[in-house]
């Protein structure tokens, strides 16, 4: 589904991504962990072309794309993104947020979009919040709306950038539950998160990044219990 080869990204002198090679297969759930500044978020943002890598190749569903690709927005529509801070549109209702992509990008008629929107809100358990504005709901609910908004585009892959780290602890569970359901449905997912329970339960593979490199990867349970590299060991000790 995603193939990355020799990816490099610099912010000024800072080498944030250093020769990244990785693949995400269809229906695979890949969890990325690493300290802040390790490049994990940047990697996700490069896959969605919110940042442009200076070197290397990214293939999405077999098609290579980069900063110069024309109609890059069409490729972005196939890659769903969930942000740490939700980034809901405050001037649109919950339903308005969910159907924005349907009516504007997919050009689906309003009524039909509403129907799809209702199904999506049901899926994330927020049917009763369709007509309220984002300011009126909790962080956990906001993130579920954000997931529904991304799902509306029927993406080929969903990227989650620390989806629960801005949430109060008691709200984390509801968001993880929605993500687990998605994984069980067979959605291809790449998740930047330190939620070990989630990683062990639904993650097919876990990647540890440090200083812009992929240091180690493996089945979550194994990487977690039996890290090979010293840096991975240190990091896991710190977060647990």
């Amino acid at each position, binding site marked *: 589904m995603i193939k990355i080869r020799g990816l490099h990204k610099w912010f000024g002198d800072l080498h944030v991504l250093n020769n990244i090679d990785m693949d995400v297969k269809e229906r695979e759930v890949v969890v990325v962990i690493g300290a802040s500044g390790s490049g994990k978020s940047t990697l996700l943002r490069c896959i*969605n072309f*919110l940042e442009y890598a200076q070197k290397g190749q990214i293939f999405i569903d077999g098609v290579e794309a980069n900063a110069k690709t024309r109609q890059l*927005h*069409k490729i*972005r*529509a*196939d*890659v*769903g*993104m969930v*942000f740490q*801070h939700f*980034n*809901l*549109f*405050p*001037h*649109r209702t919950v339903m308005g947020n969910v159907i*924005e*992509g349907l009516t*504007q*990008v997919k050009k689906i008629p309003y009524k039909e979009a509403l129907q799809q929107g209702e199904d999506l809100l049901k899926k994330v358990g927020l049917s009763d919040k369709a007509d*309220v*504005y*984002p*300011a*009126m709901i909790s962080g956990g609910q906001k993130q579920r709306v*954000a997931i529904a*908004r*991304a799902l509306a*585009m029927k993406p080929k892959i969903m990227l989650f950038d620390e989806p629960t780290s801005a949430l109060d602890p008691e709200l984390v569970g509801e968001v993880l539950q929605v993500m687990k359901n998605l994984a069980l449905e067979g959605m291809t997912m790449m998740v930047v998160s330190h939620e070990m329970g989630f990683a062990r339960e639904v993650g097919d593979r876990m990647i540890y990044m440090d200083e812009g490199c992929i240091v180690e990867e493996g089945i979550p349970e194994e990487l977690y219990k039996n890290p090979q590299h010293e840096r991975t060991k240190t990091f896991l000790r710190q977060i647990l």
Partner: protein
Amino acid sequence: MLDLPWDFTAIPRFFPGFYAAALLTIQITFFGILVGLVLGLVTGLMRLSTNKLINTPAKAYIWVIRGTPLLLQLMIIYYGLIDLVSVDRMPAAIIGLGVHNGAYIAEIFRGAIQSVERGQREAAMSLGMTQAQAMRRIILPQAFKRSVPPLGNQFIIALKDSSLASAIAVRELLLRARQMGSSTLMMLEMLMIVGIYYLMMTTVLTLLVGRLEKRLQVSDYRE
């Protein structure tokens, strides 16, 4: 009893005689603001472009207009350009006020657009929207809302600045007051009438902007 040299009973008596002038003031202001809003939006967006060919003219326009007096700009349009094109005084006043306000409004819009969090644009783009769609559907609606308070301020300034059109012989409130003052020899009384007119108009404008602000807050309300 203090014997003042003024006859304040003239104020109510002459008050209705300023209706036509007040109407002109309102017209100059209204159309001036309209021109200013259009110029301001275009210039504000151009100013934000990363393309030098697009943002340089916008920067130059703002630099020149903000750096020179409105009175001078009005005179240049009305007296100065007369060799090239003859502009009537009303259009000259409207163009002058519009071009002047456009520069300030451009900066208001630019600030408001830049104040919308980067994540909004990113969320829109991640849904597959084009830059233009993201701007029109997501960023501008939020930016407009944020620009209402400073715009209200600018509109009040524009209303008062319309009095400078008196210098190019538009018979708006101030010029009317000076003419009436000369002919009746009651200068202060006439100027006070005009003061009351301006105060009434700025009060109404303030109330209108306040109501608009309230209405736009709907999405911010919490239960």
